[in-house]
């Protein structure tokens, strides 16, 4: 919302420097996002400094008092050498000048001799700094003496663009006829515009009056109320129109006034200037009057051509009807769009049909035109929820809808009509009919809220007396009464944001805190009872898994959780069974490749490997995050936390010395997983061959503890691999179930005693069938040696002629130990024999000699 300072000052005295005013408003929740200086002096650096620490952009142009002044043009003469230029005889209050200009809006005066009424204009003298009218954007320039087509030129009559008012450069500004001559233009009409962000709770501040009320409350200055009286000199309005409200819930009030015999013409320049500074385009004095009042007090208004309405009623006084749209009903709005209306859309109609979409936009037919003579003025109140629905359904915004969709108090309807009728009288010479037609079926109940000193203490942590509370609220026009320690506050009839009961109490609390000043409320430490302390094992263990993986040399990544089924399908070879689980699908995706919530964390990680493939030969990555699987129980998906790992590239990072640059393989990934599970003290882990569409069928394993599956890992399937642009080296990946990892992590674990007696160490190599899984050999060794086995490590796997085809040799180093004594050679020998016998019997293993 753009608020011109000059307008604000009509309602409240402001002594503060601009930056300080902006800071005050911002701290109270009316965030001033920028200040546009239009003529006024720029804030001094001292003022700026006092407001340092405040996010505020101040831009614009100051008009130098001695160089840019008001002036009078007495005669417009043709230029001897140029048709498109004129020479103006001008008085700047000190002397007469001949000023050259090409402004088309002065051509009509050319060659008329001395004008009966001088034209008042802004005049920039030699050396004045203004914006260059001929360059796009805002480029400062200094007026210099020059000869143009043989005529000396050193000064100019200014356009709006040159003064930084608007981008208008077609003509020069023609000031109102009552403008003085020879005074600094900045004194006459210099301004500054505060651009204020209006949050939904302060809809009442979407007006000059609304902001002025806040300034008054914050500075303790009195607010100058508007005078809503109208000079009514026409006939009585009674019988000239009537109003029928069908749904008071949606249209609690409708007020009509009538201005007769108006003369439609441009508004006074100062009115146009204000509208422009506030961001609206001046149209004519009637439409401008409605917009002016809307900006001034926040009540949108609508002007109908009374004669058109009468004609539509067959010459009878029109009846205004407000109702919901009928099925299939259509209306062409002012923006020339024919709109299909919803059954909740409220229309302003007459007996012949719809005139406008209530509170949003008028229809074309009954609009005020240059020929209009009699104006029927609408000021109404609408249900804001319904207006907002209409706005979003019709995708139609307007200044009126902006305000109505945030809530305008019905009391404002009458005030708006009164203020506007008076302006039409002044600006358009209208004769105002006596009285108003006011249909007010549903006046709101303005809440009466009680708030006590102990409420304030409990909610804000400050001690205020009942009188202090009442005074703070009174500054915002609440009517207050004090009963003991309680203040009873009556909500003023310009706001709809105060609730009843305890909600109203909180609403008042905010107003008290804002006006009292947030910065004055002391910072304290909570001294309330501490809540019961609870562990969050899930998070603790998740973080521990992160740490473990980082310790194992992996880089954590974080990816987007929105993807598309096509992107995720890349993890499977062509022809593999597709992922047929239903996805959580967006109704309004923002991009074609982000339409669903992911099913596969593996996919996310593979995409990251692909993205970095050309940058890094070696990658070791992991991510922990959810996938979203449709659940059978209800609406909402199961958000299943997963862990995905990807490895690729040389085993050791490249340096200047020789390193193990063999590519990482299945066993590198397995080593990481084993170390992770060991770190978590998860025991009883089994690895079994598995089939999974994403993985190489011979290089894929499932991790299992008891009946629980922790996940799968392996080398990416060569046919899935080609779906990605990956480096040459094998890509190893795992996708694990975090819930299983977390639930299998024991709360506690026990250590085995550090042995006192030395172990007996020996090696054992056995030859077994190639296809025999190594874990079976290990299981037999463990079983045969029992408690005596203190260490078991596979140190070699050998295949070759020596042992014959279809066989492999597994070599283990073993340690036997007793907690009670040093084992003798005979005892060790016995264990060894037992192991060999059992391996032979159960697995057909032969001792390798």
């Amino acid at each position: 919302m753009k608020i011109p300072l000059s307008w604000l000052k009509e309602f409240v005295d402001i002594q503060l420097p601009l930056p300080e005013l902006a800071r005050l408003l911002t701290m109270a929740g009316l965030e001033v996002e920028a200040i546009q200086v239009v003529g006024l002096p720029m804030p001094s650096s001292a003022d700026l400094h006092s407001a340092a620490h405040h996010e505020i952009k101040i831009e614009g142009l100051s008009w130098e008092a001695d160089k840019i002044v008001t002036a009078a043009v007495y005669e417009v003469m043709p230029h001897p050498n140029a048709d498109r230029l004129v020479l103006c005889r001008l008085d700047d209050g000190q002397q007469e000048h001949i000023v050259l200009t090409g402004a088309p809006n002065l051509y009509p005066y050319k060659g008329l001799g001395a004008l009966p009424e001088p034209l008042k204009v802004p005049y920039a003298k030699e050396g004045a700094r203004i914006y260059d009218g001929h360059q796009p954007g805002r480029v400062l320039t200094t007026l210099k003496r020059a000869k143009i087509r043989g005529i000396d030129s050193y000064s100019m009559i200014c356009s709006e663009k040159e003064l930084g008012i608007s981008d208008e450069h077609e003509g020069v500004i023609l000031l109102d006829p009552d403008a003085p001559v020879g005074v600094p233009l900045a004194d006459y009409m210099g301004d500054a515009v505060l651009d204020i962000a209006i949050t939904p709770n302060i809809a009442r501040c979407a007006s000059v009056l609304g902001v002025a009320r806040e300034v008054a409350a914050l500075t303790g200055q009195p607010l100058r109320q508007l005078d809503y009286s109208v000079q009514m000199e026409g006939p009585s309005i009674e019988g000239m129109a009537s109003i029928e409200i069908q749904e008071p819930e949606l249209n609690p009030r409708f007020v009509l006034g009538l201005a007769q015999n108006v003369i439609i013409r441009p508004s006074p320049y100062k009115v146009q200037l204000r509208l422009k500074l506030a961001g609206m385009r001046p149209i004519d004095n009637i439409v401008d009057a409605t917009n002016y009042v809307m900006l001034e007090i926040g009540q949108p208004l609508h002007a109908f051509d009374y004669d058109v309405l009468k004609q539509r009623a067959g010459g009878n006084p029109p009846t205004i009807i407000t109702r919901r749209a009928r099925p299939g009903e259509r209306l062409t709005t002012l923006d020339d769009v024919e709109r299909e209306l919803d059954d909740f859309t409220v229309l302003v109609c007459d007996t012949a049909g719809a005139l406008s979409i209530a509170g949003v936009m008028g229809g074309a037919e009954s609009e005020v035109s240059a020929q209009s003579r009699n104006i029927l003025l609408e000021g109404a109140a609408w249900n804001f929820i319904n207006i907002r629905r209409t706005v979003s359904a019709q995708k139609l915004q307007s200044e009126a809808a902006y305000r109505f969709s945030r809530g305008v108090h019905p009391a404002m309807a009458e005030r708006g009509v009164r203020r506007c009728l008076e302006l039409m009288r002044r600006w358009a010479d209208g004769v105002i009919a006596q009285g108003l037609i006011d249909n007010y079926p549903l006046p709101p109940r303005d809440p009466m809220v009680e708030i006590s000193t102990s409420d304030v203490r409990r909610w804000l942590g400050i001690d205020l007396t009942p009188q202090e509370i009442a005074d703070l609220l009174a500054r915002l026009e609440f009517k207050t009464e004090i009963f003991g320690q309680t203040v009873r506050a009556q909500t003023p009839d310009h706001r709809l944001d105060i609730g009843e009961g305890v909600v109203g109490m909180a609403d008042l609390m905010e107003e008290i805190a804002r006006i009292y000043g947030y910065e004055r409320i002391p910072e304290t430490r909570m001294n309330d009872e501490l809540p019961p302390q609870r562990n969050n094992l899930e998070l603790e263990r998740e973080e521990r898994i992160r740490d473990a993986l980082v310790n194992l040399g992996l880089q954590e990544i974080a990816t987007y959780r929105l993807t598309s089924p096509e992107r995720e399908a890349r993890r499977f070879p062509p022809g593999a069974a597709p992922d047929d689980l239903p996805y959580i699908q967006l109704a309004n995706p923002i991009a074609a490749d982000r339409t669903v919530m992911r099913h596969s964390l593996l996919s996310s990680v593979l995409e990251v490997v692909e993205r970095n493939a050309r940058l890094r030969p070696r990658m070791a990555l992991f991510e922990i995050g959810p996938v979203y699987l449709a659940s059978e129980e209800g609406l909402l998906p199961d958000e299943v936390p997963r862990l995905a790992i990807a490895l690729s590239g040389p085993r050791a990072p490249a340096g200047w010395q020789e390193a193990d640059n063999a590519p990482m393989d299945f066993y590198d990934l397995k080593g990481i997983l084993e170390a992770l599970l060991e770190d978590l003290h998860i025991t009883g882990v089994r690895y079994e061959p598995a089939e999974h569409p994403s993985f190489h069928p011979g290089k894929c394993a499932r991790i299992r503890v008891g009946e629980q599956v922790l996940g799968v890992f392996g080398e990416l399937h060569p046919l899935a691999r080609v779906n990605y642009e990956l480096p040459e080296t094998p890509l190893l990946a795992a996708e694990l179930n975090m819930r299983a990892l977390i639930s299998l992590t024991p709360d506690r674990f026990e250590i085995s005693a550090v042995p006192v007696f030395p172990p007996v160490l020996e090696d054992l190599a056995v030859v077994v069938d190639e296809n025999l899984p190594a874990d079976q050999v290990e299981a037999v060794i463990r079983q045969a040696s029992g408690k005596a086995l203190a260490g078991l490590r596979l140190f070699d796997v050998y295949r070759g002629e020596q042992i014959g085809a279809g066989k492999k040799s597994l070599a283990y180093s073993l340690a036997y130990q007793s907690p009670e004594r040093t084992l003798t050679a005979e005892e060790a020998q016995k264990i060894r024999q037992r192991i060999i016998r059992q391996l032979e019997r159960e697995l057909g293993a032969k001792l390798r000699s």
Partner: protein
Amino acid sequence: MLESLNQIERQALNELEATQDEDSLQRWKVAHLGRNSPLMRVFDHLGALPKEERPSIGRRANEVKRALESAFEARSQALVQAAVLRSLQAERLDVTLPGRPIARGRLHPNTQTLRRIYRIFGDMGFQVFRSREVETDEYNFELLNIPAHHPARDMWDTFYTTTPGVILRTHTSPGQIHVMRQYAPEPIRVILPGMCYRYEQLSARKDTQFNQVEGLAVGRNITFGDLKGTLTDFARRMFGENVRTRFRASHFPFTEPSAEMDIECFICGGEGCSVCGGSGWLEILGSGMVHPVVLRNGGYDPRIYSGFAFGMGPERITMLKHRIEDIRHLWMNDLRFLEQF
């Protein structure tokens, strides 16, 4: 005879000085302490001396022998040491060559910032409570005092799913309702971290996916002053002990009064710089006293209980601390970016 012993000693010590390695040292030992050395010959011939000279000559010969033996030991050790020192010289490395590279793991910067936040609030008694990302409209909006078609809904651009009433949460605030309904009427101090989603055009400052950390304290005696104190304590631990905070009135439908907390720019110390846009202040979090409607929806009577809530974007904190210009870096996983943390 005594004179000749002195001569033997002088000569031997002189020659010992000249030995430079183990070989010459051994040769010296044979020559001066060996079976055929002049000294040994003196011992051999002691019996042939007159009886009265024997004790003094014998004593002197023993003295010389001990002197030569200990001189030999000393010389031997000196030579070993010199040899070691020489070989150490030869083993000298270029210490400026780079070390052997380690395949180091790292936490994602998001995790690092989240952990910092957890720890600071953990110290103040706030525990972590997590809740779901795919939410109902009811939890994300209605129970938080944001009814359907309310103008406040314009504050969030929402991703809707094809299931009516199911959305991607636009903030972590639905967790407030979950945690209150779980724990009412016990007092609550939690932080609620997690991923949120907004229908935003992608830019350097905004992304469709972002983490949020919400906080909630509910009890019988919790004030706006406590809100200011708690969040200022947080800011000091997060951004520096002397950092200044300011609380600006703001609006969130689920808190009242509501406040934005700014901190004095820690890059420029409040003087104004490009990071703070010249203002000297950085917007860090939104906060406020829990709205009575929200308390009630959570199962707490607002006549008895009060509380405060706040929400911040950890990515923004990460970006500010490390001067990251584009938020998308935090999700693109370019290793050239991640490896700097």
